[in-house]
Each structure stands twice: as C-alpha cells, then as structure tokens.
C-alpha cells in the first residue's frame, strides 16, 4: 500500500497493445468467414479512484475488453498489468490472490446467480475462498454486505428466483464487494433492468464508489448513464478505441465522427433526432475494412482513410482527450 502513495501515478489497471481474436466463423451474405478480431490493439490506463466508461455498439469489443482486464479471457497478444504487474505470466495461486482485488458485475441478473444456491451462500463465496474471516463471522459479514446494497439482511437464505431483477443485481454487487476489491468491472449492469430500477442501481454504484474508494470500469451502450456516472469515457468501434477523454469534454465536443454520430443517434427527451446521422451497418468483425474501420460509414471519409490505420493522438489543446482520426 505504501508503494502507491510514493508513486501515485501507476495506473491500477493497464492494458498494453491488447488483442483478442476468436476462432473463424462463416461469413454472411457478402463476405467470407475469417478470424474474428474482437479487440485490436487497445491501450488503456485506468487510475485509482476513476470511473471509466466504455461505450460502443454491438461488436465493438467492450464486453471482451472487460473480461480481458480481469483475465477471465487470455489475450491473443498484448498484456494486462495490475498495479504494474503483468497478469500473463502469473502462477495460478498468485492470480487467484489478485482476483480478490478485482471483481466483475454482470449484465443479466438472472444468469449471474446460481439458481440452486441461496443468495447468502453465494455472497459468502468470496469470503470463504480467500479466507477473509473466520467461519463464525461470515454470516455477519453477509448481513453487512446486504445492508450495504440496501437489502434486508434476513433474505440471505432465499433463492435467486424469489427476487426481482433489480434485487438480483444488488445481490450480484454484494457478492462482488465481499472480497473487498479495489477494482470493479461492471459489464452493462443496468441494461437488462427497467428504467426506474436502473436509476436505483446507478445511484447505488455511485454511492459505493465514493464510500469504498472503488475504481470502476462501466461498460454500457447507454451514453446517458455513462455521462452521469463516469469521469472518463472510452469510445470503441469494431474492436478499437476511437476516442477517449474526460466525459464532459467528449460529450460536449466529440472529435471522432463516430462519437458524433453516436451522440446524435441517441434518442433524448429534450431534443428530437432530426437527420439520420449514420447509414449502413457495422461491418463484420471477421472482415474489417482496411485502414480506419469506420471509413465505410463515415460522412467525412477520404481516400487516405483506407490506406492507414489512424492512431490515438492527443488533441492540440487538451492532452487528456485523444482521438483516432486523421481528420477529426
């Protein structure tokens, strides 16, 4: 712990040149099948205490990135570092120790809880696995965790199917908090919930983050929620980061055409979507376009976009805000 105080700017989690591809699949109507590049060359540094939002549409690789950050999937190339230590070469026992400090909250509250075990037992899993408390204290700890997520501690013996979607998501969060992690990846934790329940969970995550000094990676396709909750946002398209920066800035003056289109397409209560910002569909991840992956749909594409892959470069007046476009 002291080490962190001395060198405060080592990111808690860092991805370097992270790539992940999946086995070949058949192609669609117009393309032949090839290896699927889910995540390509992602460099991301997440600092302690931050809430980073990862946004993008289907096939952008955000879920895969979340799992890569926790080493739930091995990378095809590149590495993930946790507090400077690479996860790749770790001994399984060491990896397990690190897992105590990094947890995940999943999207579907129905599928993320074991239907056959009581919720109390599932929350206690983390405590038992890492031997964080003697057997006698486990029940109290579980009760405390349930209270922390604003649930009645008396429900610990019940089964998941007896709860609503929002309650199940709270239980999943309690389970993740049981190991006292520093770092949490939340993979679309509110997408499967009703709007009124979404707000409860978003508030809960914000509260927990400040109370427990958590570092949060929040993966979502909902720009509004990300804007509300996160300090920094990373925009992904077809496996690559196309823009990243402080949330307020990126949303106020988006530099990448895709981010602009995404913001413009998102329906809002306050302004109507006037023109359709984007035509066409997301290309197949098995057969991405040459050069910039977005050029097939980009309103300002130029011949040079097909030749080279744009790298993330800082904007002139704002080094924290970076964009991967030759003509931002």
């Amino acid at each position, binding site marked *: 712990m002291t080490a962190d105080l001395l060198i405060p700017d080592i990111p808690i989690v860092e991805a370097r040149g992270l790539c992940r591809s999946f086995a070949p*699949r*058949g*192609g*669609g109507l117009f393309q032949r*099948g090839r290896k699927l590049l889910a995540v390509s060359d992602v460099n991301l540094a997440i600092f302690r205490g931050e809430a980073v939002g990862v946004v993008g549409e289907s096939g952008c690789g955000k879920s895969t990135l979340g799992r890569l950050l926790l080493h739930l999937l091995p990378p095809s190339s590149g590495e993930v570092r946790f507090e400077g230590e690479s996860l790749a070469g770790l001994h399984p026992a060491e990896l397990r120790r690190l897992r105590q400090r990094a947890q995940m909250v999943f999207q579907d509250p129905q599928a993320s809880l074991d239907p056959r075990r009581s919720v109390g037992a599932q929350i206690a899993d983390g405590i038992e696995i890492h031997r964080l408390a003697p057997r006698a204290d486990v029940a109290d700890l579980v009760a405390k965790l349930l209270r922390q997520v604003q649930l009645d501690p008396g429900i610990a013996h019940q089964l998941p199917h007896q709860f609503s979607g929002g309650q199940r998501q709270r239980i999943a969060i309690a389970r993740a908090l049981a190991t006292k992690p520093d770092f949490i990846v939340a993979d679309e934790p509110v997408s499967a919930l009703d709007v009124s329940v979404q707000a409860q969970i978003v508030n809960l995550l914000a509260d927990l983050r400040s109370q427990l000094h958590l570092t949060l990676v929040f993966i979502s396709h909902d720009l509004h929620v990300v804007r509300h909750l996160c300090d920094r946002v990373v925009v992904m398209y077809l496996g690559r980061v196309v823009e990243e920066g402080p949330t307020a800035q990126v949303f106020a003056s988006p530099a990448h055409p895709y981010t602009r289109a995404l913001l413009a397409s998102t329906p809002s209560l306050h302004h109507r979507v006037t023109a359709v910002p984007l035509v066409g569909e997301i290309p197949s991840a098995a057969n991405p376009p040459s050069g910039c992956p977005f050029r097939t749909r980009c309103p300002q594409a130029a011949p040079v976009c097909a030749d080279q892959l744009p790298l993330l470069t800082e904007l002139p007046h704002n080094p924290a805000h970076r964009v991967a476009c030759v003509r931002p």
Partner: protein
Amino acid sequence: MAGYALRRLAVALLLVWLVTSLVFLVIHLIPGDPAELLLAQGGVSADPAMVAALHAKLGLDQPLWVQYRDYLAGLAHGDFGSSMVDDHPVSEEIALRLPRTLELVGVAGFIAVLLGLPSGAMAALTAGRWPDQALSTAAGLALSVPVFVVGTLVVLVLAQELHLVPAGGYVPLARDPGRHLLLLLMPAGTIAVGLTATLFRVSRSAVLEILPREHVRAAQARGLAPRTIIFRHVLRNALMPVITVLALHLGGLLGGTVLVEYVFNYPGLSGTLVDAVSARDYPEVMAIVLVISVLVVLLNLVIDLCYGLIDPRLRYG
C-alpha cells in the same frame, strides 16, 4: 453445400477406418490370450495343442502390425476371413444375407415414418386433449415392450393361437411375392412397433417446441392460413430434431434385427450372428459386426447430408 458434404464425407471415412480398427483391436484389448479364451469351455482350460493350432489359423502368432496390415489388405479385397466352424468365406454369407436384413430394416423404417411422424404432429397440435392422451399412452406402452417380447407374442397369438400367419421363415421375392411380403411384414412390423413409438414421441415434442416460437406468431400476424403455417413454418422446422433422433436410434434399430431375425427365423445377416456367437466363431462374428457398424456410419452420413439440405445455416456458413 459441397463444402459441407465433403467435410461430412471425410468424417465418415475417418469413422469407418476407426471402426474397422477398433473391431480388429477388440480381440487384443481383452485381457488374456484370445485363442485360449475362445477355446475355453465352462472354465476348463483348452488343450495347448489346439491353442497353438488356433493361433496359427487366426494369425495370432504374427506381430500386431502385421496382423493389422493383413486384416486391412484382406478387407480391401473383400476377404472377410473364414468361419471357424465350416471354413466358408464369410463374405459369401454377407453377400447373401445382408440385402435381406436391409430389406427388413427398410420396410420397418418406412412403416414407422409413415405412422409415427404424422401421429406425433397431430398429437402435438391437439396437445392435452383426448387424441393426444390416447396416442401418447399407446406410444408409452409400445416403448415398454421389448422387441423380442413383441415378436414372441406375435408368434404366440397370431401364428399359434389364431393361425392367421405362419410362424416364420423366408421365401425369395422372385418365387412368391405375396408370401415373401407376408413373411417380411411380420418381423418388419415387430420392429416398427417400437420405432413408430419413438418417432411419435420425438415428432410430438419437436412440434410442441416449435409452436410457441416467435416466427410462428409472426406468420400468424401476416394472416396466413393455419394449414400453411403448420406445413411451412412448423413441420419443416420440426424435421431437424426428428432426424437427429432417428440418427441416434439407428444403432439400436440395426441391433434389434438380431433379436427379430432370431424370433422369426428370418435368414438375414443378424440371425446368423447368434449361431456364430454360440459357436465362438470369432472371425464370422467380427466380420458381421464390422459390416453392420460401417452401415451405421454410412447411414449417419446420409442423415448428415439431409441436414444440409434442410438447414441453410449449414450450407451457407
């Protein structure tokens, strides 16, 4: 489709080779000397001289890879070995009797498909009402009676007590078509009882699974007539699981011919198997098992190709 067909053909050929090899290896995998095992009767050890003679006859004194090579070479020339009992080449027996067994299985399958599939679909469409309950009960009962019990009871009731049909036997098609068919119908019908019940069940559950699907509701929303919906959007989609189960039961179907041919004295390939096993005639048993198993692999291949015809997702990536 061509790519898919070629892949399935390659897998089938690989399986044929593996099956052939496994049949060859069985005799060597069992602990103990094969010749001694074959000659031992009721716990009494065999005479060493006879064991040595059998070794030489079966080629067991050669190194393993030589035996394997000779075995494969023999198969390639259509030589399936000779019976230990009467020294006749087994391939003659196979050539004579295999078509009869195929005929039996074909007719049984035909009857089962004709009766089982439509009744299963109908039961699904009237689920919960009396036609479904009656048919399901009948199918449940039919599945519980073993095929040799059905055959024996058929012989008892229809042949012995009621004198409606002869108790068994065989007449070639050319000589007397009517009698040939009659004698074929008995064993084929016996096999068909269990097979029809199985097909009934699987088609019923397949249709029941498809009915609540969204594309059926969407077809309804387009205002299609019920008959169109049933045939185009339900039955066609239900064909896949039905064919899958049919493939799974092929092994049991061909194995069941052993019992049925025995009960009805039908001179097919499986019928001779029983005598060969009783006589511990290993080469003959091995050859027949090989032929029938390869048949199963090939029939599975045919079914795989049918999949490709039905499901476009297999054909076009």
